[in-house]
């Protein structure tokens, strides 16, 4: 493979690592760190667009790190799913960097906000691009270490409380992930995912394979906040800085979802009856519990956190139905694309509301529609998209997944998905009515926090909203992209051939 292509695969990991190192070096000056963050994430965005373009042309890009051949060395593999995820990371990263310009002050940057943000992006991209299961674990840890520190940035009591749940559950998940890798290595003697997929087909002890696949399912299920392992998420996501919340909401659980997609299409077949049934149940219950949890909440970011969970259910539904219908997997991938942009944006809006009013509590807020009609409109776009109203991106995402459900005659899952969609609309209307529509309550006394200019905040939110509208209006090309990505996932032999070449 030519060197320019090899560079394309490595850049999405290399750029955030380098920006992170540079912003540690420039720790004295907030201005330098902001500059590095803007430039670094902009470069990351460009690199991720190039990667998606190159992957679209070549189907698979494989780079053997340090020139050690697969399956002995570590490979970076970019297939369409990986490249799409990297692009979404680029978008979220850039949006967060712009947003941070006026929300992250000296105090947070002293604690290392910027280096940690870059490290998180590097970890996320590494997880999306690696073709080695142990390396996947390493990137998970890189990402988790960065996220632990980001979560407690500022050191408030609520943050510590949330962080303890978050850290504990994630460590349990990492331990399971690692044991699963150990067992798998003992069974097949290789860590390269393509090679594992080949060798696992020849294994006779299928009981152990089931055990390993269950371990992976639980480990990634915890990371993805799937039912019944979701409670760490609403306990922690509403506590850090908004820019951090948005980054987490957009990316972290999706790394878990991505890993499920990857492992249960490439390494284990989701068609196995036990996994399949479990995934179906998990998907339905995740949707339902998430949305019901949100209905009971009156804190802006907590509502949004519960909705992350319910949306994860739709993505899992796509994966669970994949063996029966290719369309379901397309829907799952489309859903991820739609969700990351919309969800990050909603969190950013909650932050802007906080900057204007000084509260996240729906009961204390009000009257924003009269005062800031533009913001109200900007809220409606992602909110209605999340609920699945046409012509926004969420409508198509839900439509594809539910249509696949109808085709495979999984009626109860389709029913759940529809009811959950309706309840999502209820939640969004609740926020609309409380924050924007009703009059500002007279008896509450709120002082908005000191912030810099609000222009970067509006710019980010408007940019992401425009993207949501575009994904809705130009759904056809996005659908084709998701369709090709799903095709690659459904034919694991393509991935295996690309990685192992003629050696398998």
């Amino acid at each position, binding site marked *: 493979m030519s060197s320019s292509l090899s560079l394309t695969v490595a850049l999405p990991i*290399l750029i955030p690592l380098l920006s992170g190192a540079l912003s*540690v070096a420039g720790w004295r000056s907030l201005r330098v760190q902001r500059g590095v963050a803007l430039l670094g994430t902009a470069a990351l965005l460009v690199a991720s667009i190039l990667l998606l373009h190159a992957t679209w042309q070549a189907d698979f890009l494989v780079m053997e790190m*340090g020139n050690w051949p697969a399956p002995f060395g570590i490979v970076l593999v970019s297939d369409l799913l990986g490249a799409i995820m990297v692009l979404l990371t680029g978008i979220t990263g850039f949006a967060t960097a712009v947003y941070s310009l006026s929300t992250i002050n000296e105090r947070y940057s002293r604690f290392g906000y910027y280096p940690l943000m870059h490290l998180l992006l590097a970890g996320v991209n590494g997880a999306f691009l690696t073709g080695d299961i142990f390396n996947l674990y390493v990137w998970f840890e890189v990402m988790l270490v960065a996220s632990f520190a980001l979560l407690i940035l500022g050191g408030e009591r609520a943050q510590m409380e949330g962080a303890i749940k978050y850290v504990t559950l994630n460590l349990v998940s990492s331990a399971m992930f690692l044991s699963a890798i150990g067992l798998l290595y003992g069974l097949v003697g290789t860590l390269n995912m393509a090679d594992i997929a080949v060798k696992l087909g020849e294994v006779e002890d299928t009981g152990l394979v089931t055990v390993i696949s269950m371990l992976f399912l639980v480990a990634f299920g915890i990371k993805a906040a799937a039912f019944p392992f979701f409670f760490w998420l609403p306990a922690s996501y509403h506590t850090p800085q908004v820019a951090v919340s948005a980054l987490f909401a957009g990316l972290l659980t999706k790394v878990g979802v991505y890993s499920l997609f990857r492992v249960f299409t490439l390494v284990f077949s989701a068609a196995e009856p036990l996994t399949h049934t479990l995934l179906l149940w998990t998907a339905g219950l995740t949707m339902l519990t998430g949305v019901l949890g949100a209905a009971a909440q009156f804190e802006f970011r907590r509502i949004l956190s519960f909705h992350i969970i319910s949306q994860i259910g739709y993505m899992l539904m796509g994966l669970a139905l994949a063996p029966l219908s290719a369309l379901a997997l397309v829907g799952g991938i489309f859903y991820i694309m739609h969700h990351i942009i919309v969800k990050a944006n909603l969190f950013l809006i909650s932050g802007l509301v906080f900057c204007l009013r000084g509260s996240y509590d729906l009961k204390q807020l009000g009257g924003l529609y009269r005062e800031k009609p533009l913001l109200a409109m900007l809220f409606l776009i992602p909110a209605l998209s999340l609920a699945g109203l046409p012509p926004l991106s969420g409508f198509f995402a839900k439509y594809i997944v539910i249509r696949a459900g109808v085709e495979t005659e999984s009626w109860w899952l389709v029913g759940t998905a529809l009811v959950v969609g309706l309840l999502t609309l209820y939640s969004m209307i609740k926020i609309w009515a409380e924050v924007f529509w009703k009059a500002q309550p007279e008896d509450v006394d709120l002082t908005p926090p000191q912030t810099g200019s609000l222009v970067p905040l509006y710019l980010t939110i408007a940019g992401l909203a425009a993207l949501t509208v575009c994904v809705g209006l130009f759904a056809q090309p996005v659908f084709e992209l998701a369709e090709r990505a799903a095709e690659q996932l459904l034919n694991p032999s393509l991935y295996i051939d690309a990685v192992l070449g003629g050696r398998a």
Partner: protein
Amino acid sequence: MNMQSLILRTAGQFILPLLLLFSLFLLLRGHNEPGGGFIAGLVAASAVSLHLFAMDTAAARRILLAAPRDLIGWGLTLGVVSAVPSIFLGEPFFTSIWFELTLPVLGTLKLGTPLFFDVGVYMVVVGSVLTIVLNLAEEH
């Protein structure tokens, strides 16, 4: 923080250069024999810590030449950058590149990107250990 021990202070004067030299030795032999940036960095950090115990924090900062947090930053940068040259030579990321220089009297000198990586690691280790130690010492 000052231990006020004459013995420690006098001995420290001799041990400090020895330890620093030893850490350089470990750093340079690292690629092919036991040693390397990490362990060498630990030795250097312990040398500076010893100096800190014998003298005071200001003296320890003086030997460092740079603030420990700067060391972390530039060390990290050097580590990442050392993985890059391979790309320009048409090799995948992280491939080691070696150059051989012939020096008069000394013979051939083999330099490579892993050395720069090791130096980066060395700086990061020294920087992070001393950030912790110095902060703790200055608390009191």
